[in-house]
């Protein structure tokens, strides 16, 4: 009676229990994550549901969670692998429900019925005439199976899918992974056995006919459907404790992000959502120069985020303190997890001692002038840059004042990167007073690290320019016109803070292009290399940094240029120390003295 009324069979139990478990878990998880948002962000999220942002979110969820377009752009094979499994499985579920709605509408409300439709249809001896559904179901099953095939192959040979390294998985991920892999071959097997009675298409029918040749009775039908149900159940029960949590969480993350929710200093809210959205695909491992050059594989972002989710915070802190904060991993990440912000938040969590106010730092006013120039601490180490800038200011007749000629207060970013936000604020306030007092309308700086903090944190009512932007402006106004040097070939090294992190790629290139031919480099612009000198890292050793610098030099020197041109005093100093082959020149020096581009005769190499 019960069996007939509900089309119940014990074999649906593993699936059904798993489904109930996962739906409850995800609902509670989503509520908890939304609850953890600050009040302001909750309002923002609420508002976004009633604006056109929600449409954008839906489109993005479709593009990223089903089609995986970003991974496609990185690597087509990897993209296809993700797309085939996600889209194929999704379409199978949708089609199964459509099928039930059409052929057994009374059963539509049973959550398990569409999944086991083929099995039940066989039992009730109903016949189906939807040949097109058989074809479509087989088509999408084949699609998923091809994706699973690639996934299995990738585990053994990651290079085939363009990954030099793939993530080392823990046991919880392995169980979920093997459960996921087994779902689809088992589905094929189960459907093939039932295809003779309940129907099938090119795939299941074909397999069914092959099986019929050597197994004649249908005693094996139930065990295969049981196995299918168990695989589904296992996957659902292990999902919350594995990497596959990224599937549901990424949707929530997209909603949060499109609602305009930003990272805050505490690292809760969106950061927590990001941690769960990490699919542990391992694309960031190859992007990380700490891994490729300094051989610190366990410091890669994927392991850092896993440590935050599963391990102790102490280990995670160790990992966070090594990172150079170059953001190459964020650029590579298909989910766009802002891992450097999570690292920053963690560094802040490490409670420092009560700090005395930095009252001993003087506020030395300067000016008045139209342009205020801040060389930055690192430019004082490479004084050629600031001397060149002073000459350029004089040559162009700019009314300028040199804010830190006799040494100045640090911009505050190194302090910030070390997690000392409050002390950084104090430095910022002091510098801000000096800048505003000068009455300037433009702040020019030679250091991209300073540039970024001036632009993002100072909230200055004046124009902030990196010197490459200022020089380009002067060239466009015809105040300086450097000569093009025929036959000189240079490469440009994108400083992380100027390029990837501030989006300034074109200005320096335009300046250089007026003077010499720029050779393309294997990794540039968004994937520009880190020189290894960045103050973002706290615990990286000198030797590890040097390995990164040497790696960057090797890639930059591949087109055998006459000089490496960069736009950052820190990059200049670090790269200079790592190569003796060619001169490393800052853009300001190059404009001031083009002779520096000449390849210096190296007695050792000749």
């Amino acid at each position, binding site marked *: 009676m019960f069996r007939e009324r509900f089309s119940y069979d014990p074999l649906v139990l593993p699936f059904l229990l798993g489904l109930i478990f996962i739906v409850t878990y995800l609902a509670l998880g989503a509520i908890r994550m939304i609850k953890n948002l600050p009040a302001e962000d909750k309002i923002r999220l609420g508002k976004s549901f009633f604006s056109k942002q929600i449409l954008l979110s839906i489109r993005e969820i479709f593009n990223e969670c089903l089609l995986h377009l970003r991974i496609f752009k990185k690597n087509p094979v990897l993209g296809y692998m993700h797309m085939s499994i996600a889209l194929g499985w999704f379409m199978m579920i949708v089609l199964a429900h459509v099928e039930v709605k059409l052929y057994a509408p009374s059963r539509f409300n049973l959550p398990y019925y569409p999944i086991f439709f083929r099995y039940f249809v066989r039992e009730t001896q109903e016949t189906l005439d939807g040949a097109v559904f058989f074809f479509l179901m087989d088509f999408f099953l084949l699609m998923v199976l091809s994706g699973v095939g690639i996934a299995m192959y990738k585990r053994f040979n990651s290079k085939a899918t363009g990954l030099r390294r793939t993530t080392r998985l823990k046991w919880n991920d392995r169980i979920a992974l093997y459960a996921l892999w087994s779902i689809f071959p088992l589905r094929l097997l189960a459907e093939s056995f039932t295809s003779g009675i309940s129907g099938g298409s090119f795939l299941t029918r074909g397999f069914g006919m092959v099986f019929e040749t050597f197994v004649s009775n249908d005693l094996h039908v139930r065990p295969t459907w049981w196995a299918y149900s168990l695989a589904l159940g296992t996957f659902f029960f292990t999902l919350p404790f594995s990497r596959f949590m990224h599937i549901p969480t990424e949707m929530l993350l997209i909603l949060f992000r499109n609602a305009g929710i930003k990272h805050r200093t505490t690292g809760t809210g969106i950061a927590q959502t990001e941690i769960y959205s990490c699919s542990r695909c391992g694309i960031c491992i190859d992007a990380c120069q700490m891994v490729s050059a300094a051989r610190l594989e366990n410091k890669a972002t994927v392991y850092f985020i896993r440590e935050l989710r599963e391990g102790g915070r102490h280990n995670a802190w160790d990992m966070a*303190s090594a990172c150079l904060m170059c953001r190459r991993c964020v650029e590579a990440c298909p989910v766009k997890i802002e891992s450097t912000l999570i690292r920053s938040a963690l560094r802040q969590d*490490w*409670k*420092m*001692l009560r*700090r*005395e106010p*930095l009252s*001993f*730092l*003087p506020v030395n006013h300067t000016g008045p002038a139209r342009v205020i120039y801040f060389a930055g*601490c*690192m430019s*004082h*180490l490479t004084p050629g840059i600031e001397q060149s800038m002073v000459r350029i200011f004089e040559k162009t007749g700019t009314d300028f004042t040199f804010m830190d000629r*006799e*040494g*100045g*207060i*640090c911009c505050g970013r*190194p*302090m910030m990167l*070390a997690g*000392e936000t409050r002390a950084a604020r104090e*430095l910022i306030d002091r510098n801000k007073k000096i800048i505003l007092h000068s009455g300037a309308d433009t702040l020019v700086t030679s250091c991209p690290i300073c540039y970024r903090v001036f632009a993002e944190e100072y909230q200055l009512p004046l124009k902030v320019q990196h010197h490459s932007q200022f020089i380009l402006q002067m060239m466009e106004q015809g105040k300086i016109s450097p000569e093009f040097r025929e036959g000189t070939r240079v490469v440009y090294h994108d400083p992380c803070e100027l390029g990837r992190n501030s989006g300034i790629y074109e200005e320096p290139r335009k300046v250089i292009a007026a003077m010499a031919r720029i050779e393309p480099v294997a990794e540039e612009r968004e994937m520009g290399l880190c020189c290894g*000198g960045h*103050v973002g890292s*706290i*615990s*990286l*050793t*000198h*030797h590890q940094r*040097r390995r990164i610098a040497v790696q960057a030099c090797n890639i930059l020197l591949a087109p055998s240029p006459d000089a490496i041109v960069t736009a950052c005093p*820190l990059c200049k*100093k*670090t790269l200079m120390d790592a190569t003796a082959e060619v001169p490393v020149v800052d853009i300001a020096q190059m404009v001031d003295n083009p002779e520096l581009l000449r390849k210096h005769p190296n007695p050792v190499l000749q």
Partner: protein
Amino acid sequence: MAVQFGYSINKSNTIDMDTAPRAMESYLLLHEPSFARCIGCGCCTATCSSGVFTQLNLRQIQLRIRRGETQGLLPEIQKCMLCGKCQMVCPRGVSTRNVVLSIQRALQLLS
């Protein structure tokens, strides 16, 4: 009678290395092993951005830690702005920024 060179980084005093507190030094050697490579050349102090405005002297701090004279270190070390110049000039490759941060952490743990 001691020879007067006319300069010194510490006042003359006597330290009993058997009883001097070495906890800070051990902490640093454990958490920033490059501290052991310091030869006290003073490049860090010569280039120091804070040194322009204050008496911050990393070379002296290093010496004091080695001798166990860690009292009154906190206000000194907190003059550092962490700009990282000292690390760039260090001929021995000492991670000076982490030394400064580790000293602060050690002071927190040892207090």
